């Protein structure tokens, strides 16, 4: 049925656009709140908010989504009143408005997932309906920010003044130009109406005020305009001399900084692209990469048969370079800024603080780093977990903090910066009570950890979370095993903790910025070919002549014999990959691939190394083949999938199995 198909297309467009306006609405609400705390209004953000809600309402009514129309209509009314009153919101209003955007977000989320839509909550609509009357009006005696004849000024409404102030802030001209009508001019067809029209074409007219002329009897009109046009153009339009056009200028510095200006400039020239389209481009590219390797091999074959392939080899090489550039370009297109990833954090922390009745000051330090959308989607939930834990468990109540001699408001610092060229370092720091080692140890039934590394092991025990939710008095542990799984096992990153009793806790996550196309080592094990990401490999060791201690382990539940490799005085567990994977025995293992999992080395014995190659990893998503230790499959040019092993994750699952 084509009609319903169209509606769905339209709905998808609506969802994307609504989501964009919601993001900006939330940012503006928080900006207004931040300024309110300094006792200042933020008229520009209020006006932007008004526009966002107006647009959402318009879009929603076009696709006929009543609950969203109802909420956005009520919010729009509040914001219109606030805008008219000089762009002021009372502190309590921000809360209600945030509930409004939340409700719209929920409705949008429901539509996205095809869930049925609930009508707009009546309590919310009632609360919103009460707000317009509460919008504070700018005090009439408030400091004026521009020069103007007091007689004219008294004729201006708040919105007019705001329009002039905003025009000046935006660096536009504001002029006062007087038009003097006369019977002679009227006969020529020049009246205030024609002047209005002429001026309206080159300027925004703030107000036309009739004035009594002092020099001669009769009435004149003072036109106040905001424009980019120059004085000559305005003078011409009002049929006056340039000298008679008077500039209106700023007298006071602009009220407060413009927090949104910079961000707006950066947004210019961006478009939204669905990630699936980029993935598709990447897929096509991967096919190209595969063909290139075939070409390279065919060239090598020709050369082996004695053909002169110098010209061909040059082209192949050139082609490889171009492919690398193309790959880099597509990879860049998949990158999102860390600031975008973390833009919901202020709202989230605010909500958490309200739920727990704690005072939290958020300090967000975000660098200019960018990371792959796929990585961002995985790591952000981990950050959310950490923030939740910090507000729920780590930060104390105001009373507790005062008793401990700390400021009432807890500080939560989130920082995100590039670490080296290929990693992002995320830190979540609180100045709360610190993790109670004794308590955690008791709960886990393990000895008290004396190092931060041992503490991390303990709080990442999978069973700890359930115990923790029943006793929320102190400590953390909720979901820490999941955070480690995401950071270390899925993304090949690192996780560490530093906690000082009474002073606070810092979690540091390091994750790679990209994951899609990777450099991989190819190797054989159990007569099967595998690939392993170069980034995850610490070292490749020749086992010939290496010192290895081994003994039978009848108690091992995995049936895998562990040996100890002496690596320059460090004892490294050595596992034969082919027996871990239960593959048929192959030739004697000659090489070991060393990986580091949470700082500890693990060695995997393999048959032989085959070389290094760029590969496009496709995740193994089907439940039939999803398994710890395998991160995906790749095509290296022979048309058959080659398994990409995740030796770090494999180490984790083996340790769990042995535990």
């Amino acid at each position, binding site marked *: 049925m084509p009609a319903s198909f169209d509606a769905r297309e339209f709905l998808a467009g609506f969802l994307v656009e609504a989501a964009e306006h919601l993001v900006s609405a939330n940012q503006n609400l928080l900006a207004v709140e931040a300024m309110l705390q300094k006792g200042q209004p933020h008229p520009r953000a209020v006006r932007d908010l008004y526009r966002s809600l107006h647009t959402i309402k318009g879009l929603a009514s076009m696709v006929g989504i009543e609950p969203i129309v109802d909420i956005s209509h009520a919010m729009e009314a509040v914001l219109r009143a606030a805008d008219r009153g000089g762009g002021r919101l009372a502190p309590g209003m921000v809360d209600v408005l945030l509930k409004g955007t939340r409700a719209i977000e929920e409705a949008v989320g429901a539509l996205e997932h095809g869930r049925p839509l609930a009508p707009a909550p009546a309590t919310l609509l009632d609360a919103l309906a009460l707000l317009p009357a509460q919008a504070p009006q700018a005090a009439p005696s408030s400091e004026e920010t521009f020069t103007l004849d007091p007689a004219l000024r008294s004729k201006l409404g708040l919105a007019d003044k705001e329009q002039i102030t905003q025009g000046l802030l935006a660096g536009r001209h504001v002029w006062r130009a007087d038009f003097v009508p006369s019977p002679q001019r009227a006969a020529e067809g020049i009246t205030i109406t024609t002047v209005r029209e002429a001026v309206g074409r080159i300027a925004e007219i703030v107000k036309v005020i009739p004035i009594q002329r002092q020099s001669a009897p009769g009435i004149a009109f003072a036109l106040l305009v905001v424009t980019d046009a120059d004085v000559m153009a305005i003078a011409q339009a009002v049929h006056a001399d340039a000298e008679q056009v008077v500039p209106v200028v700023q007298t006071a510095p602009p009220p407060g900084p413009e927090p949104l200006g910079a961000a707006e400039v950066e947004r210019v020239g961006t478009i939204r692209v669905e990630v699936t389209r980029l993935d598709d481009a990447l897929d096509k590219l991967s096919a190209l990469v595969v063909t290139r390797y075939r070409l390279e091999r065919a060239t090598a074959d020709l050369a082996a048969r004695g053909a002169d392939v110098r010209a061909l080899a040059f082209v192949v090489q050139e082609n490889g370079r171009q492919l690398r550039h193309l790959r880099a370009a597509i990879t860049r297109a998949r990158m999102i800024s860390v600031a975008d990833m973390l833009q919901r954090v202020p709202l989230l922390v605010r909500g958490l603080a309200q739920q727990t009745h704690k005072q939290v000051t958020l300090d967000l330090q975000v660098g200019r780093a960018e990371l792959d959308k796929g990585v961002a989607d995985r790591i952000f939930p981990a950050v959310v977990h950490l923030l939740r834990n910090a507000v729920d468990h780590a930060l104390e109540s105001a009373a507790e903090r005062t008793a401990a001699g700390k400021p009432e408001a807890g500080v939560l610092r989130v920082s995100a910066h590039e670490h080296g060229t290929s990693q992002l370092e995320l830190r979540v720091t609180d100045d709360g009570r610190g993790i109670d080692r004794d308590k955690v140890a008791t709960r886990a039934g393990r000895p008290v950890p004396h190092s931060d590394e041992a503490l991390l092991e303990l709080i990442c025990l999978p069973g700890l979370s359930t115990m923790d939710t029943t006793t929320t008095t102190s400590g953390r542990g909720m979901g820490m095993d999941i955070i480690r799984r995401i950071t270390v096992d899925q993304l090949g990153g690192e996780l560490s903790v530093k906690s000082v009793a009474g002073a606070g806790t810092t979690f540091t996550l390091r994750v790679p910025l990209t994951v899609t196309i990777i450099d991989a080592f190819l190797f054989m094990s159990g007569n099967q070919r595998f690939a392993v990401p170069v980034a995850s490999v610490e070292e490749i060791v020749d086992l010939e002549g290496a010192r290895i201690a081994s003994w039978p382990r009848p108690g091992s539940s995995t049936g895998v014999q562990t040996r100890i490799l002496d690596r320059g005085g460090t004892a490294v567990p050595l596992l034969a990959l082919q027996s871990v994977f239960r593959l048929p025995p192959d030739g004697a293992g000659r090489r070991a691939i060393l990986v580091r999992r949470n700082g500890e080395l693990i060695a995997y014995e393999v048959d032989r190394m085959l070389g290094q190659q760029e590969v496009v990893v496709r995740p193994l998503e*089907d*439940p*039939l083949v999803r398994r710890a230790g395998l991160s995906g499959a790749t095509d290296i040019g022979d048309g058959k*999938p080659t398994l990409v092993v995740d030796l770090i994750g494999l180490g984790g699952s083996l340790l769990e*199995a042995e535990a």
Partner: protein
Amino acid sequence: MSALYVAFRVSDAEYVLPAAQVTQMESFNGATPVPGVPPWVTGLIHVRGQVIPVVDVRLRFGLPHLTPLLESRVVVVQHGTRSVGLLVDTAREVLKLAPDAFVPAPELVVRTTRGFVKAVIQAQNRLLLLIDVERIIGWEDVHGNQRQERV
């Protein structure tokens, strides 16, 4: 309304599944084995830029293993968002079957086939068995295996 069904053979029986669920049929040139999965998951193959798992229907039905032959086929089925290959002995026919030809499988058949057969069809002097695709590519028992391995 009659609908189209893809017919295939495993051992000495003929089976059908709705053609609407079949995205393509490929000859079988081997799959990449995946460690740690049930033996009836033969491995992974590339199909039109996708990597999909292949289920050996013989082994899934508990029949003895047969080295794939020239006429072995991989019937690629789409189930929800999943795409899975079914390795069968042969698959050559597409049949048009009327709904009244389907009879619910007798209790004994359901039990002996462990629920893999949903219905029987008597058509043109042939006995066809309608398979339960969802159950064949189901992973509940896979997860059971993995849990056991972990414990």
